[in-house]
């Protein structure tokens, strides 16, 4: 066999394995979602809400130059339906009016606080508490990045569980109750996350999504389909397999003592949310502790998706880099027998399909046609093969939309469902290639060792604002 033939076979096998695993994930996710939906009629959340044994939670909100939206976010978080929580906003050395806006809105007054023992983080400037809401405090510190701010919040948190929230995330009123439910049911759960959705196109009023809608422009709509696929299929599936490696930084809860014992968030990666979860898995498995990282297949948080190619590209490059940094740092997992499913499935899967995926895809797009043109490969075969892999990809997108429609049916309008189905049919032509390109860039950046974050301009959530431009 010639080299070309061998690589042809490799690509073939790769696509078959990848697509089969996606398909089996879809089946697993479908079962899990149906079971979850059925359990909604016997949800004991009212009891949990009233119960004195429901553990209290510290909500951590890191904010860097979020003057536009931070007041709105805090206000909506204070309305969360949960029996007992405190809220710690960490102003990470903002250079805009973040602190001023918070001070005015919540009657903050400066206090003197003893810094608890715990993690290390950039020096604190001032600590303020709200005279209006006793559960709210704001810590203003020197800039140290998101992970550093979260470590500060973790240190000051007084409750056994912490909930990390992005300043721009919009939460469902009972998001915390829902995401805490696996913990309430099973004390060995050390972390839990839920479904994150795209807020573009939704009507937002006072920090609550009042009407769910699709974005008007194509780029964020593509991301809606992509999120459906990632969360409804991917995360649900990994959750079922007890090998969930990512809890979205936008919204997740953690057992504080475990996070503290593994050393908190890592400040030298751009993917600190994934890195923390992987590190928790790794250390707990190493120590032989029985534990679980849970995924709640409920839409809990809404987040703003990039609307321009430039910003989206930056985000995807950063995701790819973060993913690779985490996997590289924890590469030891694959040779550690105590790591179980992480060693033989989760990490290899991520390396093979998430890290190498873009490379193989590029190879497929570039090398195979050339080989075909030279007559080394049967050109008809190449075309037929591409056709199958594309149509298969389309099927996964369409199934994700179908899962949404069968379970949550959050998009109220018929034409929106129609559009969603349409985008699911077309997102393999163009958008997929675009993300592959960005991820390739991310790989290059990782190899070069860039660590800085892409800046994402936020517009903030105004009242009665229909964000769909």
């Amino acid at each position, binding site marked *: 066999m010639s080299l070309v033939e061998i690589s042809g076979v490799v690509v073939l096998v790769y696509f078959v394995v990848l697509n089969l695993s996606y398909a089996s994930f879809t089946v697993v996710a479908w079962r899990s979602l149906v079971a979850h939906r059925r359990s909604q009629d016997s949800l004991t959340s009212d009891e*949990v809400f009233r119960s004195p044994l429901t553990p209290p939670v510290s909500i951590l909100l890191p904010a860097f130059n979020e003057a536009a939206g931070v007041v709105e976010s805090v206000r909506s978080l204070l309305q969360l339906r949960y029996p007992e929580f405190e809220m710690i906003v960490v102003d990470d050395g903002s250079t805009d009016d973040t602190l001023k806006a918070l001070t005015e809105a919540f009657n903050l007054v400066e206090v003197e606080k003893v810094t608890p023992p715990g993690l290390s983080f950039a020096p604190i400037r001032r600590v303020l*508490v709200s005279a209006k809401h006793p559960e709210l405090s704001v810590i203003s510190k020197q800039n140290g990045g998101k992970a550093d701010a979260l470590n500060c919040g973790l240190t000051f948190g007084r409750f056994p569980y912490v909930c990390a929230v992005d300043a721009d995330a919009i939460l469902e009123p009972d998001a915390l109750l829902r995401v805490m439910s696996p913990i309430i049911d099973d004390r060995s759960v050390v972390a839990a996350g839920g479904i994150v959705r795209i807020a573009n196109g939704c009507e937002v009023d006072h920090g609550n999504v009042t009407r769910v809608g699709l974005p008007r422009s194509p780029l964020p709509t593509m991301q809606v389909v992509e999120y459906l696929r990632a969360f409804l299929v991917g995360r649900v599936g990994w959750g079922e397999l007890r090998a969930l490696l990512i809890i979205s930084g936008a919204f997740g809860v953690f057992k504080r003592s475990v996070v503290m014992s593994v050393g908190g968030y890592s400040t030298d990666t751009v993917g600190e949310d994934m890195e923390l979860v992987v590190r928790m898995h790794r250390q707990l498995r190493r120590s032989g502790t029985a534990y679980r990282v849970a995924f709640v297949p409920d839409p809990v948080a809404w987040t703003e998706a990039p609307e321009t190619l430039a910003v989206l590209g930056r985000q995807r490059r950063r995701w790819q880099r973060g993913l690779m940094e985490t996997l590289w740092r924890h590469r030891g997992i694959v040779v550690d027998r105590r790591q179980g499913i992480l060693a033989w499935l989760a990490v290899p899967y991520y390396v093979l399909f998430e890290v190498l995926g873009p490379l193989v895809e590029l190879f497929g797009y570039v090398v195979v046609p050339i080989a075909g043109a030279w007559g080394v490969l049967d050109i008809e075969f190449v075309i*037929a093969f591409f056709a199958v892999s594309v*149509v298969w990809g389309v099927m996964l997108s*369409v199934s994700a939309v179908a899962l949404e429609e069968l379970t949550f049916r959050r998009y109220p309008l*018929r034409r929106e*469902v129609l559009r969603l189905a349409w985008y699911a049919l077309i997102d393999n032509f163009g958008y997929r290639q675009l993300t592959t390109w960005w991820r390739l860039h991310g790989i290059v950046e990782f190899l070069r060792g860039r660590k800085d974050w892409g800046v994402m301009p936020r517009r903030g959530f105004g009242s009665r604002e229909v964000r769909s431009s």
Partner: protein
Amino acid sequence: MTTQLIALSIALGVVNIVIAGAVVLNRLVARYSDRRYRRAVEQVRPIVLSAIAGDAVSLGVRSRIELLATGDLLAKYGRNLSGDGRVHVNELAERSGVIDALVRGSQSRRSWKRAACVYRLGDLGRNQAELLIVRLSDSDRRVRNAAARSLGKQRCTEGVRPIAYAFGRGTIARAVGAQALIDIGPPAADALARLLSSGPVLVQAGAAELLGRLGTVSHSSLLAEAMDHHDPEVRVAAVRALGRIGARSAAARILPVLGDPVPFVRSAAATALGALGSRDAIDALTVMAESDEYLPARAAAESAVLLGGRFPDPGPHLREAIRMSEVTA
């Protein structure tokens, strides 16, 4: 090979279009049935509301969808009602056959259906302890949780022991079991007292915690004994419960706990002394606030300030507590 691949891709393409079409079709059907359901709800609503207010209403002959709507409405309302309203909900549910359907459903082979029916019996039914207690040992956790909840909702005193048992063995969610016992009220306290003296550590802790909500001064000597328990979780829960019950006499028993080897037990003791208003503890608390490690020192400072202590030269914890009490006042 090539031909097969092309055939496969065409077949998959067709599948895709079928799925996409099914999504849209499903929405159309759902819209239709949603509308029918909503219409039924609006038809039944005035009748249900008037029945809840105590009127003698007749339901007449009902279609399946109306029966469904009646059940849903009754459950929604019943969940928020107690007293007379609740009695009327139950009467209507019995008369309209909703209860019978739920009792049948509670024996379904499908676990989610059992869970849903058992759950709803809590909103609609009355005195179904026997059925619910059986479900408390169901093979499915959701059913067990639902059964505990419903026993609480129906205030079945017969449910106290089995719930306490399930709570103890961890076969139901602790928060749910706890709330069920609280809903049942004072009769649950004695069962909890028994759990406190035996059972796994986590249960003893939970029992102590709950006794703090349901117990009376009569349980304080039992809780005081639990303060000597070998497990710090139980000690903490006992101290907290004593603080909450508010028996002044307990203060003297809690004072020595300020010297507990485990920091969070010391914290709990300091907080409880503050809650009990025991001014004799101010000196000990002040010393602790100045010298102990972070958590107990903070708790001690908060309590010392709460008790109205005077501090000529307060350290950092006391300064923080004084300032915080000014802010929240």
